[in-house]
């Protein structure tokens, strides 16, 4: 019963954007029926997954009242580090993956530490680490992709579970559940809403604001590291140019999902739909044969319309 209630409240909370997603799917399916094949739908989910990892953590950071621009670069760096450890140093897979995750987490921790202890705006902090991360990836690889010949490594991002479920989609499911639980069932989740909603009240309530900020940015770094490893695995290589502007797609997904850029309000469920809209859009436009140049323009217009509709709905509600 509570499951049914959960689904119902999910639909009610995200009605506008859900409608948008459905309409989008219908339009694309009419123009190209191949869109609705199981294969293609799984494809959409797989293509959406790395953006979703970033967007889930970005949701927390934005609800907190912050922003993390560094995730695209951190993705590249962690992918490169993992790939190099396997390809050049013959490191065991687990160790290489752990190192990649550690790199991401450390970058996040750096963002979080500076955001928590200084008055530098997070936009600037993460703009700086965006450059540092990207630069580090170039320096390490001398600008060249690092190829990895390892079936085990490739399985991480390109494998199937039970022959049907792509591994990245499995991770998506796990992370959506994890982030939902963090935001709705833990103390940290409530504190994130508190700090983003009214930082002064949080301070007057004795909430440890620094710890909350540190957690959210560190988690964002960890997720970027994870996304970087999955992406590298799917490309059979660590590429220093991977994930350019990925942070913007993540922010777009969060905003499409109804999270307030000023903090304090937002839902993980909304972000999932937001990421799906972006995924469906690029998959569908490809199927219809719209050139990738035009796709940017369409994406931009969709973001504007969706967010405007959302603001409009909230004003009249």
């Amino acid at each position, binding site marked *: 019963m509570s499951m049914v209630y959960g689904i119902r409240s999910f639909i009610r909370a995200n009605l506008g954007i859900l409608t948008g997603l459905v309409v989008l799917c219908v339009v694309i399916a009419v123009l190209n029926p191949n869109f609705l094949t199981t294969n293609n739908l799984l494809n959409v989910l797989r293509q959406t997954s790395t953006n979703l990892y970033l967007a889930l953590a970005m949701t927390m950071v934005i609800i907190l009242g912050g922003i993390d621009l560094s995730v695209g670069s951190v993705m590249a760096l962690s992918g490169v580090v993992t790939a190099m450890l396997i390809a050049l140093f013959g490191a065991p897979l687990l160790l290489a993956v752990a190192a990649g995750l550690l790199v991401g987490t450390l970058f996040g921790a750096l963002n979080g530490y500076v955001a928590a202890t200084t008055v530098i705006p997070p936009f600037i902090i993460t703009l700086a680490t965006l450059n540092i991360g990207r630069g580090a990836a170039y320096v390490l690889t001398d600008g060249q992709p690092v190829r990895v010949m390892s079936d085990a490594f490739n399985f991480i991002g390109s494998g199937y579970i039970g022959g049907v479920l792509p591994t990245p989609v499995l991770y998506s499911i796990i992370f959506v559940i994890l982030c939902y639980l963090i935001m709705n*069932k833990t103390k940290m989740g409530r504190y994130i809403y508190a700090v983003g909603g009214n930082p002064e*009240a949080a301070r007057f309530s004795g909430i440890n604001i620094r710890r909350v900020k540190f957690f959210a940015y560190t988690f964002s770094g960890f997720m970027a590291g994870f996304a970087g490893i999955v992406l590298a695995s799917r490309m059979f290589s660590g590429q220093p140019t991977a994930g350019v502007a990925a942070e913007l797609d993540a922010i777009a997904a969060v905003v499409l999902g109804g999270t307030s850029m000023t903090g*304090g309000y937002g839902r993980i469920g909304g972000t999932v739909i937001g990421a799906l809209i972006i995924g469906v859009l690029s998959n569908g436009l490809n199927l219809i044969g719209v050139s990738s140049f035009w796709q940017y323009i369409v994406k931009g217009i969709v973001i504007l319309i969706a967010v405007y509709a959302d603001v409009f709905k909230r004003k009249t509600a």
Partner: protein
Amino acid sequence: MPITLPSFIEVERMGQTLLRMSGISKRFAGVHALKGVDFELESGEVHGLLGENGAGKSTLMKILAGIHPVDEGEIFIEGNKVSINSVKDAQTHGISIIHREISLVPHLSVAENIFLGKEPVTKTGWIDWKKMREETRKALQQFGLELSPEMPVKKLTVAQQQMIEIIKAVSFRAKMIVMDEPTSSLTEKEVEFLFQIIGQLKEQGVGIVYISHRMNELFAITDRITILRDGTLIGTVRTEETTTDQLISMMVGRELTQYYIKDSAPVSGGEVVLSVRNLSKKGVLNDVSFEVRKGEILGFAGLVGAGRSELMKCIFGLDSFDKGEIRIDGRPLTVRTPNDAIKNGIVYVTENRKEEGLFLIRSVQYNITIKLLDQFIKWFRVNARFENQKTRQFINELSIKTPSPDQEVRNLSGGNQQKVLISRWLATNPRVLILDEPTRGVDVGAKAEIYAIMNRLVKEGVSIIMISSELPEVINMSDRIAVMYKGGIRTILHRDEFSQETIMHYATGG
């Protein structure tokens, strides 16, 4: 149009009536803030405006400044009936207000601030910087300020910034300047300088409305004083013909309605729970010492800016202090963060519940339980039953009127919001509850309920510190009253010494 700075102001005949406000009334959402008030200002006069917090002084001046529209009444300027509908209107009529908070743009220079919005331009349409600097230099000289026109305002002292505000006002051809507690953050020497400037303005025929609680200042510079109480005009007196005692008795004298009163016997012998010794913070608090006993209500009276909230923020770990000691149950306590205080049973309910207290877009339940999470959330497991039960308990005990525990707090009335905030802190089982203006902006019914809650708590042995600017409230509810003035405790009164006059006497520096 050429900009006119002070040197160009014509000297007007003294004693000419500049302003006459007649029968001014104003209501805010049911509150009768002003009831038919008359006020007059002559040219070359300094007219003091006196009254307790909430007496209507600011409202009256905001009507004059075009910030609030007037409901009833007429305003005459130099004999002509005028209507003031905007700040711009007020400026056109030569009215200028210097607010307690400086309203200059910190990054801009002195000259840019003075000319903000009326920059002189050259024939080609560019800003005439040379003229701006020249005019500013002249004005600064006239007021005896040795400052460069190019100096960014943020580098000036508060007193200097105030002078710039005055110059700015005069440069608008102000005939009337309202000064709202201008000396609250000035040193003695700076006050002296300000008075010299006021003297100059007087000679030029400018009329000045001077809002202040400091008796010595009112006696030093005003010609007449008008006293308001609860939105009503009590009277206008000539300064030379009055005394501090007379002014105080005109200011106070609200009825001590009996429906809320501490109903338990005054506490005298109980054990000391919290004691504060020699607490000092430079420029804010000056050697403050007091103690609170078990089950006692210690009132804190004083005027805005006396340092009451600042003191409590130090005790609660929101602000640091330079010197002094806080003890709980006799053992010394180090408070670096609010949690240090909370762990030791000291909690602080802020006076600004919307800005510093509540999470407005979240539910009643969320707001009540935010300090209780340790008791019902373990990692990913929420004991929803415990949470609901606690929320219901407080909704019932404090009779919070809300359609459901899931209601967003912003949709509640002021009184119910206040009760939600108090619930949050009661949920931590405090031993010392600090209430800062607990009944501000709540209706009469909710007020009575809050007093009932306080009565219940002290019977259960909780100690309460209550900051209140409402004299009847503080007199009726307190066992003792500490009166603060300029960052220090002027006196601590016992029940048999309570009276509005006595408190006001100490609160105004007597």
